[in-house]
C-alpha cells in the first residue's frame, strides 16, 4: 500500500515568511509524528498526535511552530515568521500504536530559509 507522503519535497522561503508543510500518513495509522533533522544530525521530536487525544506538543521549539491534524488523518505543520535556524528537513511518521511501536517515515520536506 501507499506509504507516508509529504509535500512539498523542497521549500525555499524568505526569513519572516510563514510556511505550511503537509503530511499524509499511512491509511489506518492512528499515530502521527513530526521530527526535525538538522544538517548532519539525528532527529529531533516535535509533536505527536494519537487518535482523538490531545497532542503531545512538548518538542515544539517555540510558539512560532504549530501543527494540526484534521479528521484523524492529514497533518499540517506551520512555521510562522521563519528564521534561518528553522532550515532543516522536516520528517513525518505514522504508526499503529498498539502494534510494535515502529514508525514509518515519509520522504521529508527540506526547508531552506534565506
Amino acid at each position, binding site marked *: 500500500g501507499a506509504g507516508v507522503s509529504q509535500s512539498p519535497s523542497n521549500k525555499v522561503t524568505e526569513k519572516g515568511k510563514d510556511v505550511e508543510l503537509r503530511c499524509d500518513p499511512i491509511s489506518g495509522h492512528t499515530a502521527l*509524528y513530526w521530527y526535525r533533522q538538522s544538517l548532519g544530525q539525528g*532527529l529531533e521530536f516535535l509533536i*505527536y498526535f494519537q487518535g482523538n487525544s490531545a497532542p*503531545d506538543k512538548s518538542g515544539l521549539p517555540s510558539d512560532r511552530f504549530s501543527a494540526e491534524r484534521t479528521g484523524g488523518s492529514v497533518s499540517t505543520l506551520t512555521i510562522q515568521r521563519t528564521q534561518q535556524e528553522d532550515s532543516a*528537513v522536516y520528517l513525518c511518521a505514522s504508526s499503529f500504536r498498539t502494534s*510494535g*511501536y515502529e*514508525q514509518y*517515515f515519509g*520522504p521529508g520536506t527540506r526547508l531552506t530559509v534565506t
Partner: protein
Amino acid sequence: AQTVTQSQPEMSVQEAETVTLSCTYDTSENNYYLFWYKQPPSRQMILVIRQEAYKQQNATENRFSVNFQKAAKSFSLKISDSQLGDTAMYFCAFIVTSGSRLTFGEGTQLTVNP
C-alpha cells in the same frame, strides 16, 4: 533523560564483508522497543530491524541482525554480506512504551566499497 549514543560517526566496509555498528542507550524505563533505521541519500528513513526489550532472543532480518544486551544497554547492528545498496546513514533509536517519541542517536555513516 533518555539518550542514544552511536560512537562511530563513519565506517566503511568492503562489499560482501561483515560490519557491526555500535549503539548504547540510557533509560530508566523497563519496557521499550529498539530500532535501527537506514537513511540513504534519498532522505527516506527506512526501518531495518526491531527488537522488543522484553525478548531475550536477538532479532534477525535477512542479512541484518542485532546483538541486544539489556543489562549493558547495548544494541549493535550486524550487516552480513554487505552490498553497495547498504551505503547509508544508520540511526539507532528507541521508544518507551509509556512515551510518545523515538529517541535517536547521531547516526553512523556507512560506506560499502566495491
